[in-house]
């Protein structure tokens, strides 16, 4: 599903140059649930942003579902994001003046889906994350866990190939974190490929494979025994 070869990325701030990714190689197969771990500054978020086409690599190869991702202009990047990817952010990133339902239907709007179908689909995904009765609430009326579940529903709405989650539990307490992870595991069980960036060990161990990053290189990449989050809820 994802193939990455010798990926490099540097940030330039004035005269200083910061080499964040120093040759990353890894593949993700369809249906995998991978966590990317590392201390802050290890380059894990940068890697995820490149995978999400929110940022571009300086060097290296990135193939997503057989499509080489390079020399993207904004237009094509936007289309690919809409078509291939679903995002889950640490800070939820819901649009605060739109109801949960409207937030979930947003990717469908950009996909060109008609309003009626959009609402039906969005409602379906809200049901899936267990928030059907909250569909007309604004994000400000929802708890952190509920907001993240809306964000997950939104990420699923356009039926992407890969879900990218950047510290999805970073802003949540342990109990809510496990609820969210339970949901993510459930989605993975249905066959969706998911990448999770986290710095929490317990969260990482709820995935099926841990990729450990340090100073811009992968120091460890090994499958783990998945711990079901439902056991802790």
């Amino acid at each position, binding site marked *: 599903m994802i193939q990455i070869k010798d990926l490099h990325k540097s940030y330039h701030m004035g005269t200083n140059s910061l080499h964040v990714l120093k040759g990353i190689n890894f593949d993700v197969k369809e249906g995998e649930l991978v966590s990317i771990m590392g201390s802050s500054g290890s380059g894990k978020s940068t890697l995820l*942003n490149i995978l*999400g086409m*929110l*940022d571009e690599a300086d060097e290296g190869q990135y193939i997503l579902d057989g499509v080489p991702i390079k020399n993207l202009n*904004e*237009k094509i990047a*936007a*289309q690919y*994001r*809409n*078509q291939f990817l679903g*995002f889950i*952010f640490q800070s939820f*990133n*819901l*649009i605060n*003046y*739109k109801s949960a339902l*409207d937030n979930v239907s*947003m*990717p469908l*709007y*950009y*996909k060109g889906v*008609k*309003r009626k179908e959009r609402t039906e689909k969005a409602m379906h995904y809200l049901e899936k994350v267990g928030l059907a009765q909250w569909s007309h609430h604004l994000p400000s009326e929802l708890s952190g866990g509920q907001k993240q579940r809306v964000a997950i529903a*939104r990420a699923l709405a*356009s039926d992407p190939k890969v879900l990218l989650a950047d510290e999805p539990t970073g802003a949540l307490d342990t109990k809510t974190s496990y609820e969210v992870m339970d949901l993510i595991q459930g989605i993975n069980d249905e066959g969706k490929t998911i990448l999770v960036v986290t710095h929490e060990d317990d969260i990482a161990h709820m995935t099926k494979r841990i990729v450990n990053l340090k100073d811009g290189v992968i120091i460890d990449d090994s499958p783990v025994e998945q711990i079901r989050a439902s056991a802790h809820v």
Partner: protein
Amino acid sequence: MFDIERWQEIFETLSKNKLRTFLTGLSVASGIFILVILLGFSEGIANGVKSQFEQDATNKISVWTGVTTKGYKGLNPGRYIQLKNTNFDAVENAYDDFFEYRTKDYMIWGGTVTYNNETGNYRVRGTMPDNQFIENADIGSGRFISQSDIEETKKVAVIGNKIKTDLFNGEDPINQNIQVFGMNFKVVGVFYDPGGDREEGQVYIPLTTAQKVFNAGENIRNMAFTVKMADNFDEAVAMSNAIALGIEQKVKEIHTVAPDDVSAVRVNNTLEQAQKIYSLIATIRAVFWFVGIGTIIAGIVGVGNIMLIIVKERTKEIGIRKALGALPMSIVGMILQEAVFVTMFSGLFGLIFGLGLLELVGPLIESDFIKYPQVDFNIALTTVFLLVFAGALAGFIPAYRAAMIKPIDALRDE
């Protein structure tokens, strides 16, 4: 532009950001509203001043006489200069080619005028047929003094509308007899004058008749001419000034008046005044336009400012939308369409509100100097479109910049 989904999205955004929408709309609507009111009142003032002025023909030269204040060629000061028919003939002979209308008048300031039992005190004025045009009098019914009235010294009268209202009590005055100082005159016409009551409180009778019945002989009180207008206004003023000066010199020469005696013979050239008043009106208009355009510029800056803030405030939202697959152009389009819709709607609202207020309040204004305040609808509409266009332009730059920000930077924006 006609994408219904886009419109739904925009209406949703607008209705969920009511304060922002309201403030943007308010700044645009008030800008247009103030412009409309300003332009309306500048037009009203122009109309008012013009109508004050246009009670008489604007190209009129009138000659009056008074008492000499200076001795000249052995004659003492304090002489009353009496204009005669011959003076009029002399002026007419000298400048006839330049004149359009000409009249000489003999008037009694307080004439007792009676119809049946109603009596009033009015100005009675012996005049010539041309005076109708010099005074800008409109004949409401009947006719004005005619040449044959003059030649046959008929006892006919043309009365002002005020006298008709005062004395006739709704009756038709035509062919009725009125008494002026007890003498019967047949009413042949009723006139209106843009000068209003002051001018309409007059009785015109043939000059020859006036001279006869008031024992004036060859005396006249004043004379007036209108000058044929040259195509170029400045030329016309110059010509009319030259003629006025020539007339003054001629009359002074005939009556042996010192050339620098300003009170014995006075020549009044309204065209010169007209030029001053037109330039005053032009100045008033320019000032109002200046203020109006300033208001519009302030409005444009306001809209641009609000657009900047909106885009800044929505940077994160733009990042989210881009992460979800929004194309850069759809972001620019969304922001612009929203801006254009709000400015257009509120601009038209301000326009209609301003025009409505002028329509409503305009007729209620009872001032001689403000009349019919109104605005050229096309000008007003043009300014609305100008504002919309400028607002869109002011919004485009930040919107474009926002759409070009990498989504990752936009998402980091807190």
